[in-house]
């Protein structure tokens, strides 16, 4: 599903991140990217999803050339992606419900199907009460959950989760973790997670990639 060759990313401070990274994630596979803050976990996820141009290297997703190429727009209509952002990523002029429904409406889903998937995702993440509020009116934790709910409703074949558990309380963490384990077990869904603390995902069947500001290592589960 994902094929990366000789990647290098530019950090805002001019450092090179993930220098020389090559990896492949098969369809239905899972990859957990660990590393300390500043090691380029989020940047790597963003580059693989086509949102950030790497300094060097080739990225192919679902057989499509993302880099060098048109980035995420090259995947439009070809690979259904879901991305849960570590922060932000929700449209500030839409309610949480509208944020979750928007990608579905763009997929031309309407009526009962649209409502079922939107309301189902809101209920699963415990966001029913806040569904009518805009992102600025809810807690950071609810925004994080709404990111996950959007991914859940979209039913994507490739999922990127950027620090999905950070800042969640125990109850929300359990709900999110259960959801992530479900995606990991789903053979039709490829999952990439970036997280600082790998312990939280100790039960997850996934390949692990350890990033550090200067080196990286790929481990098998």
């Amino acid at each position, binding site marked *: 599903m994902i094929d990366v060759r000789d990647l290098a990313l530019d950090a805002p401070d001019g450092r090179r991140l993930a220098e020389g990274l090559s990896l492949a994630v098969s369809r239905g596979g899972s990859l957990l990217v660990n590393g300390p803050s500043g090691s380029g976990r989020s940047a790597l996820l963003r580059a693989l999803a086509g949102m950030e141009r790497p300094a060097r290297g080739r990225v192919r997703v679902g057989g499509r050339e993302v880099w060098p190429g048109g980035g995420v727009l090259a995947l439009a209509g070809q690979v259904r992606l879901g*991305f849960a952002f570590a922060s932000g*990523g929700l449209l*500030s002029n839409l309610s949480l419900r509208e944020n979750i429904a928007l990608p579905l409406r763009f997929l031309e889903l309407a009526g009962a199907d649209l409502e079922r998937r939107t309301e189902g995702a809101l209920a699963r993440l415990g966001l029913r009460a806040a569904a009518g509020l805009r992102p600025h009116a809810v807690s950071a934790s609810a925004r994080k959950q709404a990111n996950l709910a959007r991914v859940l409703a979209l039913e994507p074949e490739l999922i990127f989760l950027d620090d999905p558990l950070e800042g969640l309380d125990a109850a929300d963490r359990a709900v999110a973790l259960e959801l992530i384990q479900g995606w990991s077990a789903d053979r039709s869904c490829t999952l990439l997670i970036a997280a600082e603390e790998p312990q939280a995902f100790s039960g997850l069947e996934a390949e692990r990639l350890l990033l550090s500001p200067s080196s990286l290592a790929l481990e098998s589960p």
Partner: protein
Amino acid sequence: MTYLARLGAPVRGFLEFLGDQAHLVLRTLRRALRLRLGQLGVVAGQTKLQIRFTGLDALWLVSGTALLLGAVTLIQAFSQLSGLGAEHYIGVLMVLIILRELGPLLTAVLVIGRSSTAIAAELGAMQLNGEVDALAVHGIDPYQYLLLPRWVGVLISLFVLVVFFDTAALAGGFLVAKLKYAVTFGFYMDSVRQTLSNRDFAATLLKILCFSGVITFHACHFGLRIRRSQTEIPQAVTKTVVSALVAVFALDGLLAALFYF
């Protein structure tokens, strides 16, 4: 060599800017043709919002400005030309000054001040908050969801605002003409109608089309270039205003030369 490079840098920057504008326009048009029926509702919703902010909310401002401008134009004309039979040239004055030139131009200036600044700031904030990336990664084409509705919304709004501007300016002119020379409404409108030609309508429509593109795509260009910090937003807004104003005045001169020179 360094000196030559420094000399050529502004030219290169300008050409890059023109290239980016052409890229934005062509990509938006191409993506517009790829819109599917079920997506039209989402895009139409965004377009309606843009029409509300750019057109509806500016209606009183534009009409009030035009009413005063129409009245002042004829007051000044009468004060200078009263001995030369100015009342016979009311139509010519109104068509030449207001309908041909100031109507589209001043409306565009007001829309730049109100809406192109808002578009640049909004897109900049969306860019910083990761909203543009979030749209793209979830299969929502930013050209279709952000740029196209803004362009169509500004185009429709500008057209409506120019119609209101011209109507209000003619009304303001008529009030002065009636009070000063007791000109009847029929005489006034006949005078305007005799001077107006199809060429004026064509020139105005072309100006509206060009100005709407300038207003929208200058704002999108500077707004979407914001990458790192909130302090870039006011800079982008300022650049949008200056750049769009220069472009609108330059295009206005070009079109005037094309149609009337």
